[in-house]
């Protein structure tokens, strides 16, 4: 899957999960930058991402994804 | 690093200085305070005026013996030295202080002193620690590190500031009247008084109690051991212990613990352990009669 496609789909998931139609993603975006993105909603996000891209994360991998950029990289490695 | 240490030392010096200045200020007001509780301590340890009849104990004494009434009836000046919550270590140091200046004719000590265990009251003596060797001796014996802490005036007067300026001035020669309370409605409903506990008596407290009695007696004072009335059935074992302790001293016992002329009248009580002003009148009157019988006056 192309990087731009990943980013677009991911943006949709973010916007839906955090109820913010204007949310845009950047590589260095983190949880602190988005309203309502905390440990409570993080898992919901992860679940939605897995559904959207038809992939499965491992628990160990969660700690390695600190920014959206990390997230995109991880998704790409699983999709290809 | 050296600069930091210098600053630290400077701060510590300022701290000690400020503490001393505050101490002098607060100490000055402490001696002049009209606060009900602190007045008696000041009178006993500093301003004592050679009274003839002295009453020692805690709240069960300070709210019971009407000093001015005794003075009027007997012609002997009386002061109620009792102070809320104060136990035997306080009383002993106080007695020593007084005997150094003068020998009173009569001293009364409450037997409840034997079961007062909370040592917080010792801090009431701290303001006199520096200049009073008896206070010093007792305090140092109780805790060998107190002398270092007492270097700090804030420790001496800890938590006393508000009290010093809280002047209620309802203290007449040491006696503090308690009003007849609505709570008595509850007390007068009690038909069967509960059984009192068999209290533990700390050996060190017992030793000091005896020391107190012996010291007073050997100075030529007539000593009374006062067993206060309480709205409970006195536990026989406890009564026995107290009477035995007192028997080994030369004190005469005034035992009101099972006196139904008082216990049967709940309207004389403020709460389970204290008499109100009406009860104080009755008890003081009783005490005056005893003094007459014993030819004190």
């Amino acid at each position, binding site marked *: 899957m192309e990087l731009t496609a990943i980013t677009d789909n991911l943006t949709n998931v973010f916007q839906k999960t955090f*109820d913010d139609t204007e949310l845009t993603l950047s590589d260095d975006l983190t949880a602190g930058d988005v*309203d*309502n993105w*905390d*440990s*409570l*909603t*993080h*898992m*919901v996000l*992860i*679940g939605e991402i*897995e559904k959207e891209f038809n992939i499965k*994360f491992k*628990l*160990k991998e*969660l*700690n390695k994804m600190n920014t959206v950029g990390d997230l995109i990289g991880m998704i790409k490695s699983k999709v290809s | *690093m050296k*600069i*930091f240490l210098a600053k*630290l030392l400077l*701060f510590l010096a*300022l*701290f000690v200085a*400020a*503490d001393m200045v*505050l101490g002098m200020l607060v100490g000055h007001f402490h001696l002049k305070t009209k606060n009900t509780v602190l007045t008696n301590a000041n009178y006993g340890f500093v301003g004592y005026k050679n009274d003839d009849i002295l009453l020692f104990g805690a709240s069960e004494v300070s709210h019971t013996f009407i000093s001015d009434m005794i003075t009027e009836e007997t012609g002997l000046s009386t002061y109620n030295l009792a102070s809320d919550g104060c136990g035997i270590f306080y009383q002993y140091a106080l007695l020593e202080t007084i005997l150094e200046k003068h020998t009173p004719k009569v001293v009364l000590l409450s037997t409840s002193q034997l079961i007062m265990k909370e040592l*917080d009251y010792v*801090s009431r003596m701290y303001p006199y620690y520096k200049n009073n060797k008896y206070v010093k001796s007792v305090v140092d014996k109780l805790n060998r*590190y107190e002398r270092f*802490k007492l270097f*700090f005036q*804030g*420790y001496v*007067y*800890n*938590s006393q*500031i*508000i*009290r010093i300026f*809280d002047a209620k001035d309802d203290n007449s020669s040491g006696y503090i009247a308690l009003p007849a309370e609505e709570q008595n409605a509850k007390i007068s409903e009690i038909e069967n008084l509960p059984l009192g506990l068999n209290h533990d008596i700390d050996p060190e407290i017992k030793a000091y109690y005896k020391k107190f009695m012996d010291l007073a007696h050997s100075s030529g004072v007539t000593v009374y051991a006062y067993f206060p009335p309480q709205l409970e059935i006195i536990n026989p074992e406890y009564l026995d212990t107290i009477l035995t302790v007192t028997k080994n001293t030369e004190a005469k016992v005034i035992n009101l613990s099972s006196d139904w002329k008082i216990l049967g009248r709940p309207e004389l009580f403020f709460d389970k352990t204290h008499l109100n002003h009406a009860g104080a009148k009755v008890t003081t009157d009783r005490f005056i009669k005893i003094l007459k019988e014993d030819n004190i006056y």
Partner: protein
Amino acid sequence: MVFTSLNFLIFFPAVILLFYLTPSRFRWLTLLISSYFFYLNIEPVFGILTAAITISTYIFTRLIDRAEKDSKKSVLMYINVIIILLPLFFFKYFSALNDGVFTILEAYNIRWALPKITFLLPVGISYYTFMAIGYTVDVYNEEMKAEKNIGIVALFISFFPLILSGPIERATNMIPQFKSELKLNPSNFKTGLQLILWGYFMKLVVADRLAIYIDVVYGNLEYHNGNSILLASILYPIQIYGDLGGYSLIAIGVSKVLGLNVMPNFERPFFATSMAVFWRRWHISLIKWLTDYVYTPLAFTYRKYGIWGIVLALMITFVLSGIWHAATLSFLVWGFLQGIFLSIEALLNKRRSRFVKKYKLMTSTIYIFLSIFFTYILFAVSEVFIRAETIEDAILVFKKIAFERGVIFLDLTTLAYGFIGSIILFMSEFREEYFPKKLLFFKNGNVLVRFASYLFVSLLILWIGILNGGQFIYFKF
């Protein structure tokens, strides 16, 4: 030897002196010796327990590193975690279990001569147990490599400022620091001493003073009326904050003086606008630990259930946090309540966000004030279960508050001092929360302002702090 004892005031400078005299490469060793000295001074026998957990953790983490297959690593991790948890279960929960068994047997009229054994809880056990578990899991998760020097591992587990009551630190933060060249420098001294001073203020002037009033009321629940109980219950969170928060600051300050950076444990919790925010500001190290090692794995496992998976994970996590404190029904209820509060918030979160956005309430003072007030009340309600100690008493408290009025019992002197301390604490935090860089006192640029502030706080502690003893409440956890 608690922080508020005379012994500690001698011990700590002695450690600094020793620290200073030791070459920086070996300062970790000085700390290790001091820590064991500190601990053995309190509970000699349990030094063995700490050592045992250290040895086990050291061996297993190194084995995990060496193992190649993930399945083997995972088994090793679980074994060590179980080993570490055994003493905790034994001391904390054995008596509860034993009582439970006793009660059940009695109900069936079986008088089995099972001795009712009461064990003295080893001080600090809940804290270093969690730290050791965290370290094990971190090695498994490849967050860090297993430490080869057993002395450093021993120091991590027994480090004296943290051992009594936290903050619950991470090996990833502490071990690299312990291995580095530890230095004493004026800046650390200054910051550390500031934290220590404020910590003592919170504990001795605020917490211990309020405790006097609250203890009298809660110690005689049958006698006091609803109004007095209400006041005591409203004040109790402040007491706990002064107590645990103050103690944490002392721990963090002591560590700072020794050149070590320990995570904050509290961040102005009573300015939280929701329970979710509250739990990011209250007992932060505990919640972070539970989040990383309990909540996240659980929520991850249940993520296919969406928001209900979150709720389940929350409930389990917070019930566990309750039991971590003590194996009593009251703490179970407390944990359960926290879970409920957070679950409800999580479920209503989207609706609330939309509401706030629609009416632009983010900047509304009234909205913020009401949120803070409501959050405080929720927390105070849950704390009743803790202070009342039994469920029956807690119910009595709520019943009296709701139905029994009367003349409120006030010890004016105690409450006056308590009020002074609380107001100063509140104003300091208010300033820090809403005007962070303004009106600084300890951090003011002018040395005269700083000195005056230090003097003011020190004198407050000396003159109106509770100086005659007083163990702090979180001690035996």
